[in-house]
């Protein structure tokens, strides 16, 4: 075998076959991609790469690539995918003309929603400068519960925000995770952990992927993790197996909570009016004059007073005779009845196993604790000569989050981790800068619909972190200001928006109609939408006068997705190998435990056809619309192009803080902060496209209250204030809303029909309730839970155009426990129906002993609409593949009142995994193909002219050597 021609060039950049964003090396031969491997110098993936990343070649040269701007043909129906190519100039003129009118009259009629991107700093800025409230990324239908539940409790979350320290953990508990964003790093870490002899427990109704290599699999009924976690918390409290010192000092466990039934602050921390406020401006947001009940003196003392140590359990009478309890006592009270037996009846996990698990966690944290000889100073000036480690680590994801009771379950998890004393401690959970942020973070959304004015930017960022009803984005009647009703009384803490309701709401004109809907990188006509068949109808629906209910739809995509069929204007994006991108500190960087990391993508191959990066499109539009911030005083454009924008943009003039933290300063010598460096891109490119600011040891732990770290973070503008991020085991924010619902709080009150809802779900102590959908379902008729899982070798919908990846997941089956299947008469490999109250799907069955008998599941987003992705309309994906989305309603009927989103009532997180179904065999005469099926989508102009009957890729020679 003789050697193959050597690659002519190797360039480093950042992968974007998924949101993990590993460092890659792209090897080129004669201008074509020869090989993509992991960059060994990259902190995230350290040289490894995944199945998707290794298939980048087939993405780059996919026949489904869009290569020209397209306009829907005059008279063609949306969904029919009949387009004509137009020039970019025509596209810009069309879009800018429309947007200019909207901005000058009613900016909220422009809605911008983005999917799988990681560039929300730019899209958010664009929306804010445009002045529309209707902007969000995909987090609402993704995992906002995991973000919000954790951030509202410990100031950080998983993924690029923080994670398990598996290098030092001894017990690792993974809950409801199939693959997650941190794909390669998590795999690297789990394997090392296992090799070092660590014990790995997985809680999941299904045993695949990570769970497959767990030492213990704990099958759980979907939607019940809250009950499990509360029972574990109860067991730990009963047994005294918690880290009292940690709770007392670094959490609000010791804050005395006012229990005076007459008080306006019932259920809120007692504030000491006599205690001088350090900084009144900050104090308004993060009051520091709270009080403890001192153990030694048995008196009320300012919290964190020198030498004091708070009681965290008990009930105390204050000087004025009113009762008060430390916050932790209220947690203990709240979980008193959450016995393992109670949890067993809900979760299906034997009570003994729950007890054993609780003990194992508590004892490992206690008996295997260790110390690192690291000096640090806490936020109250006390010096410590060591950092304590407690080797119990957790990772959890959408198994907990994607339920309408997920916020409280995630809070329960955060509290459990706190009880074990594992927050930002070695062996436990570690933050990744810029996290931890304040609890909650300081940015707030606009708090009144009047903030939206013609031709005006918004004064606040569109998205933020409400701390009380005063931060809600509502109108004077308490109605929503946003099309998705985020930050309204319906979903007060919808910090990521509710993208899953945008189309339905816009179609209904509820709360108001919009004009232009712009979707970037999301397949909203298929797998990211609930109730897919209906939503597709809505997208093409017209009012009585024959006008589209959603007048104009713009889709920016790189491939012929299902969504493109419904666009009026299609903008062809570049691929990740063709464009500049930033994984910015202002957005979602790729930080490590030991310090901030950001990275870039640089083009390694030229753009295909007429593709243009969406970033350039936004900048062009900003220029044409003359959006403030993008223009010079003389009216000329401030930024030449996207790379120029990235280099020169500063959060405030002269702030020295921009999108990228590396190689700042005129000579590129500054890190984190410094004046813009015109050669910043080159320097990134020359340094593996990544910048890692490694923190000194004393800044690597206990960062919720590590003074040195926090001051540094504020100086670097990672934090706005230098206040400690005190962990909120008891949620004051929740109580503020509850008080408003109870009418005990001055200021805003929820409208009457939402009062009971707010009062119930805004409980400062986490609790378990059945998912909303199960309450709206006849469980006798629909007894089974149906969930999906991410396949490791496929990214949502977008890899079916990838000739290599699609061979691994060409179509999908519904996995059913054989006992369940046999009871329903469903045969292994046979055709069957899966039906929910909202729809039904015909699919193929696969018996599996690796799923809990009350659950059925399938791989996510494998089924495709005929003809989409440039696949043959009869391709397996379209004929045998299916999506569960047809079974999942985006709205639920309520016993009283209008329909509500099928979402968590706190955060608006889409309740994907709440659906209940029944299954039965397809009858003998039925077609052996999936249902529903849709009319085939023709090839879009600009995609590959013909489908090759075979390919044999050889770099430098193309797909047919």
């Amino acid at each position, binding site marked *: 075998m003789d050697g193959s021609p050597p690659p002519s060039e190797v360039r480093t950049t950042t992968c974007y076959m998924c949101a993990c964003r590993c460092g890659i090396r792209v090897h080129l031969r004669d201008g074509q991609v020869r090989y993509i491997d992991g960059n060994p110098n990259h902190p995230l993936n350290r040289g490894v790469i995944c199945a998707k990343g290794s298939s980048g070649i087939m993405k780059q040269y996919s026949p489904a690539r869009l290569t020209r701007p397209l306009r829907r043909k005059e008279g063609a129906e949306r969904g029919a995918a009949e387009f004509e190519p137009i020039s970019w100039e025509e596209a810009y003129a069309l879009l800018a003309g429309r947007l200019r009118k909207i901005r000058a009259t009613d900016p909220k009629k422009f809605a911008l929603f983005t999917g799988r991107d990681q560039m929300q700093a730019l899209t958010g800025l664009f929306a804010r400068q445009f002045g529309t409230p209707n902007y969000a990324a995909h987090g609402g239908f993704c995992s906002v519960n995991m973000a919000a539940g954790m951030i509202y409790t410990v100031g950080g979350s998983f993924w690029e925000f923080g994670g398990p320290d598996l290098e030092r953990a001894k017990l690792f508990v993974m809950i409801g995770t199939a693959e997650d964003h941190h794909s390669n790093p998590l795999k690297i870490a789990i394997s090392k952990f296992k090799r070092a002899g660590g014990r790995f427990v997985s809680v999941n109704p299904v045993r695949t992927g990570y769970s497959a290599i767990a030492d213990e699999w704990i099958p759980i009924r979907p939607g019940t993790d809250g009950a499990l976690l509360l029972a574990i918390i109860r067991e730990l409290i009963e047994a005294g197996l918690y880290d009292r010192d940690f709770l007392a000092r670094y959490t609000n466990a010791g804050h005395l909570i006012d229990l005076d039934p007459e008080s306006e602050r019932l259920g809120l921390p007692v504030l000491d009016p006599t205690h001088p406020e350090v900084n009144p401006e900050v104090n308004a947001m993060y009051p520091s004059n709270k009080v403890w009940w001192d153990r030694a003196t048995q008196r009320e003392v300012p919290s964190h007073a020198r030498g004091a140590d708070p009681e965290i359990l008990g009930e105390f009478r204050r000087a004025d005779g009113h009762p008060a309890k430390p916050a932790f006592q209220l947690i203990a009270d709240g979980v008193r009845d959450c016995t393992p037996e109670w949890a067993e009846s809900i979760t299906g996990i034997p009570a003994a196993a729950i007890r054993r698990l609780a003990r194992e966690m508590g004892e490992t944290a206690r008996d295997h604790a260790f110390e690192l000889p690291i000096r640090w100073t806490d936020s109250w000036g006390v010096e410590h000569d060591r950092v304590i480690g407690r080797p119990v680590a957790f990772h959890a994801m959408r198994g907990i989050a994607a339920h309408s009771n997920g916020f409280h379950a995630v809070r329960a998890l955060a509290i459990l981790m706190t009880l074990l004393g594992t927050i930002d401690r070695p062996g436990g959970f570690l933050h990744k800068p810029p996290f931890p942020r304040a609890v909650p973070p300081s940015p707030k959304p606009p708090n009144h619909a009047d903030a939206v004015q013609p031709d005006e930017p918004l004064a606040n960022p569109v998205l933020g972190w409400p701390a009380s009803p005063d931060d809600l984005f509502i109108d004077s009647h308490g109605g929503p200001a946003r099309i998705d009703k985020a930050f309204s009384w319906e979903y007060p803490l919808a910090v990521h928006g509710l993208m899953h309701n945008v189309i339905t709401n816009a179609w209904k004109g509820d709360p108001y109609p919009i004009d232009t809907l712009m979707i970037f990188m999301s397949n909203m006509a298929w797998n990211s939408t609930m109730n897919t068949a209906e939503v597709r109808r809505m997208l093409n629906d017209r009012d009585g006068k024959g006008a589209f209910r959603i007048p104009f739809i713009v889709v920016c995509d790189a491939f012929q997705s299902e969504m493109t069929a419904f666009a009026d204007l299609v903008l062809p994006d570049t691929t990740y190998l063709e464009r500049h991108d930033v994984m910015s500190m202002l957005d979602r960087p790729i930080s490590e435990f030991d310090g901030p990391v950001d990275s870039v993508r640089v083009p390694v191959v030229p753009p295909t056809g007429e593709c243009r990066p969406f970033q350039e499109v936004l900048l062009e539009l900003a220029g044409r619309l003359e959006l403030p911030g993008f223009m010079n005083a003389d009216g000329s454009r401030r930024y030449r192009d996207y790379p120029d924008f990235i280099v020169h943009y500063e959060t405030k003039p002269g702030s020295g803080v921009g999108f990228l933290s590396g190689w700042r300063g005129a000579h590129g010598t500054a890190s984190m902060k410094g004046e813009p460096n015109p050669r910043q891109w080159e320097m990134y490119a020359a340094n593996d496209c990544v910048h890692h600011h490694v923190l000194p040891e004393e800044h690597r732990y206990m960062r919720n209250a590590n003074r040195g770290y926090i001051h540094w973070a504020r100086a670097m503008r990672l934090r706005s204030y230098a206040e400690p991020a005190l962990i909120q085991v008891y949620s004051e924010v929740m109580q503020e809303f509850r008080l408003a619902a109870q009418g005990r709080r001055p200021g805003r009150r929820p409208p009457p029909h939402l009062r009971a809802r707010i009062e119930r779900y805004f409980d400062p102590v986490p609790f378990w309730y059945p998912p909303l959908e199960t309450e709206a379902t006849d469980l006798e008729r629909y007894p089974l839970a149906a969930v999906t899982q991410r396949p490791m070798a496929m990214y949502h919908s977008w890899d079916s155009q990838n000739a290599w990846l699609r061979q*691994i997941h*060409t*179509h999908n*089956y519904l*996995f059913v426990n054989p006992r369940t299947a046999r009871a329903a008469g469903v045969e292994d490999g046979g055709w069957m129906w899966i039906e929910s109250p909202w729809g039904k799907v015909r699919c193929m069955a*696969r018996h599996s002993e*690796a799923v809990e008998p009350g659950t059925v599941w399938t791989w996510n987003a494998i089924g495709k609409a005929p003809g989409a992705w440039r696949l043959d309309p009869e391709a*397996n994906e379209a004929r045998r593949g299916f999506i569960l989305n047809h079974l999942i309603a985006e709205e639920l009927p309520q016993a009283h009142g209008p329909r509500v989103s099928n979402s968590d009532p706190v955060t608006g997180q889409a309740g994907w995994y709440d659906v209940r179904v029944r299954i039965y065999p397809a009858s003998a005469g039925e077609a052996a193909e999936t249902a529903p099926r849709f009319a085939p989508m023709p090839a879009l102009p600009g995609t590959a002219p013909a489908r090759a009957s075979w390919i044999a890729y050889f770099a430098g020679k193309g797909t047919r050597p």
Partner: protein
Amino acid sequence: MRPAFSVVFLTTLIGAGQGLFLALYSAEVMGALGRIAPPGPRFLHAGSWFAALLAGLGLLASFFHLGRPERAWRSAARWRTSWLAREVIALPLFIAGVAAYGLAHRLPLGPPLAVGAFALAACLALFVCTGMIYACIRFLQEWASPLTLANFFLIGTASGFTVATALAAAFEPHVAGFFGRWAIVLTVVALASRAISLARNARLRPRSTPQSAIGVEGARVEQKSMGFLGGSFNTREFFHGVSRGGLSVVKWAFIVLGFLVPMALLAAGLAAGSVALLVAAPVVQYAGLVAERWFFLAQSNHPQNLYYQRTA
């Protein structure tokens, strides 16, 4: 396994060719020994050519089995280790040998029986090679048995004698009885041998199991996914894709058409002196033996299949 028709035709045709040669040669030997009235040289000459033709057609069929027939010349290289390479040598030698044997009845090449001895050796070697191609793969348990050699030999010989009977009935009637009686005897013996192998195979317990395939103990080891859904060489080459019922039909078809009907036709044809019946016998038998060979190939259960059970 999925039977390739190129292989089916290759093995059945050369088997018949070899058998026909054996018939001719044995008749000439018996004639020389004075046990029967010998067939005439014209018949032996033409018959040999017919045997060579059958074998040549088999050789031709084999080319259709190759992905790269233009390189077929390479295929004798590893005769030291490969039964296939040996077959590749033995088959042309046999064809040459039988042609020479035929010609020896026309041209002064030497005593035909002496010339034929060479063909006889090639013929027997070819039987061994062909059989061993299958029998030598130890984990194809249905094949890895001396019965495979016996069957290839007996079936090939029987079908050759049947062909010889038909040829004789048409052109050299006085030896038709000799050929026909032996054809019946050989067909009976072949059927017996084949039946034994069927019985053996029915009782085989696969030595490889899902447990040994992946090296995991446990009462229940079941594949859920072979790692791809659209099929691959491994799902195409090693699975016949025919139902159990279908297989059983083929089995009975070959028993009936390959053995029982030809025996009846031979017996009736000899008894009635009917050329038509005797000519029908090899035609029916060949169809049956095609089914037999298909079944032989299909029935072998490749251990690799343990890795290609299910998609998901």
